């Protein structure tokens, strides 16, 4: 205290309350967070190191140790040679199937849901709320109860086991939550804007394309994140509504890893798992905070 008194002649405590950097509170706080973070990171780490080890090393060593020798062979094998049943062309087939499923499903479901949401938010009509309630309720109903009737419908349409059929399924089941997302967003846009556009003579579609859509880019991004991760990660619909040649990546991955034939190649399995996870992980790390919004909106889904 002596020197501070010299400068300003202020006695006693002054300035910020002294805090130890290593206070008990901070040790507990950061210690807990650190331990939990390690728990969360270990699986990713184990996947990575396993996928670049050779099989002998895996049999001998432990799963947490760093690889003695790095090999990318498991990755190559997972991508182009791993077998599911009789097909031995690796995950690449599933990857392209998933792309072919995801892209149109995302586009279709978002197009329909955004227009629905817009109609519900800005052009309310009698009975709209009833539809909407049923739709939202549909989001909570276990899918299992609708699985079989949809098989019949797809079969009638001649789309069963084909990719367009699965695209239709994804579009249908994406609708409740996306509609809710868009409706809530459009409701939050000031109504004056909508009224001004109407006074200026714009109609239903004019307002949608020229006023609402340009203003809603963030919500479209959120919807895209939600749908891409959701559809990419889907397993149930993929396994029911497609046949082996059209299996999406997730289904193929499960079949590769859990196949009972042959010797288990853990390194290839982990490489395949990582490969399948790359797309959603990339979406996650690129989109950052928008991802949180997306999943928060999609949480009630499926």
């Amino acid at each position: 205290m002596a020197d501070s008194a010299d400068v300003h002649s202020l006695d006693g405590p002054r300035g910020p309350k002294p805090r130890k950097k290593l206070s008990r509170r901070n040790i507990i706080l950061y210690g807990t967070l650190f331990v939990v973070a390690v728990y969360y990171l270990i699986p990713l780490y184990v996947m990575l190191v396993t996928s670049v080890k050779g099989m002998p090393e895996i049999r001998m060593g432990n799963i947490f140790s760093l690889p003695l020798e790095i090999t990318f062979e498991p990755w190559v094998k997972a991508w182009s040679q791993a077998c599911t049943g009789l097909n031995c062309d690796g995950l690449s087939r599933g990857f392209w199937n998933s792309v072919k499923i995801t892209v149109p499903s995302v586009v279709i479901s978002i197009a329909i849901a955004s227009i629905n949401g817009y109609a519900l938010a800005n052009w309310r009509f009698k009975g709209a709320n009833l539809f909407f309630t049923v739709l939202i309720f549909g989001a909570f109903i276990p899918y299992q109860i609708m699985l079989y009737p949809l098989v019949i419908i797809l079969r009638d349409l001649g789309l069963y086991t084909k990719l367009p059929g699965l695209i239709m399924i994804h579009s249908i089941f994406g609708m409740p939550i996306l509609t809710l997302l868009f409706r809530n967003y459009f409701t939050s846009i000031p109504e004056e804007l909508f009224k001004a556009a109407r006074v200026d003579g714009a109609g239903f579609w004019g307002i949608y394309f020229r006023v609402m859509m340009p203003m809603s880019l963030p919500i479209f991004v959120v919807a895209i994140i939600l749908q891409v991760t959701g559809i990419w990660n889907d397993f149930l619909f993929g396994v029911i509504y497609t046949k082996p040649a059209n299996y999406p990546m997730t289904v193929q991955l499960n079949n590769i890893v859990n196949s009972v034939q042959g010797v288990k190649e853990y390194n290839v399995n982990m490489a395949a798992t990582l490969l399948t996870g790359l797309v959603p992980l990339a979406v996650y790390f690129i989109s950052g905070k928008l991802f949180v919004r997306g999943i928060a909106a999609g949480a009630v889904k499926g």
Partner: protein
Amino acid sequence: MNSIEIKKLSLNFDEVVVLKDLDLTIEKGEFLVLLGASGCGKSTLLNCIAGLLDVTDGQIFINGKNVTWHEPAQRGIGMVFQSYALYPQMSVKGNLSFGLKNAGLPKEEIEKRVKHASEMLQIESLLERKPAALSGGQRQRVAIGRALVRDVEVFLFDEPLSNLDAKLRTELRVEIKRLHQKLDNTMIYVTHDQIEAMTLADRIAVMRDGLILQLDDPKTIYNAPANKYVAGFIGSPGMKFLKGTILQNDKPIFKLEGGWSESPDLSNYKFQESIKTETQVWLGIRPESVVVGGEAKNMPVNFSLEVEVVEPMGADTLVWSQIGGQEFRFIIDGNISVNVGDRVTVGFDPAHVSIFDFDNEERL
């Protein structure tokens, strides 16, 4: 004894300086208002006094005790927040007693204090209700009650009335003033509303950019603002400023920039210090210190001008005009009828104007 003493207080948020080297002394029983536009640091200062923010430098004394490092609850303060900050799931009684229970006070004592506070604020009938079932005014009373039961020397108010509508605000304003007269403890009150400040305060501290521009009683602040900012901030409708120069021969004369047939004689004005000739200044005139018609003839300065816009406000009428190309406005009695295009004679006493330096805007 001084109730609160603040010495060399500074506060930075990272690189941003919010409060700079601030000194302030508040006497026991004083009602001090911190007044300023949003972002001037007034609420920050209050939070520092309450101990809700860690200061960067300086000291805070409450009742002679250095409390710079004390927790808020140990400082002997009660605080009332803008959003009331009532605990929503507790009844009014629970809200009032929660802090006391926590401090381990005996039951009878808590009962006594809650009873006393609720009687004082006339909320006895609301004790069992939840905050959600109260009106804005009632909630604010409960919030005041929560400070009251703490039985402390110092009350801190953070814009307590700004969430209420205009009518309720005036009612509660009076009640706070009554409360102060009854309790006679120190109160620090933050607001951006200059009428609240004028009506409540013993002293007002006008703040801007983390500095106290002027600390004085309301009358002085109104009549002799220390600088152009304070002058413009206090008073409604606000003071109008005329740009010009002062020529000092045998007596000071105001020359309006842009040319004006009149050159008012400012001998009546009490300059802080003698003034050099050809000083560029702002001449500030409050609209309400201008008089019209017959009375104007008796004023040291009088002239006539043409009415451009008339804004009747009931009791008064605000008249807009121009002097030599600069905007000028004044208030006349609401009963006098004037029309656009009329020429009226107006006058003022230079003793009641304020003159500020053109460059540093300080009072001359």
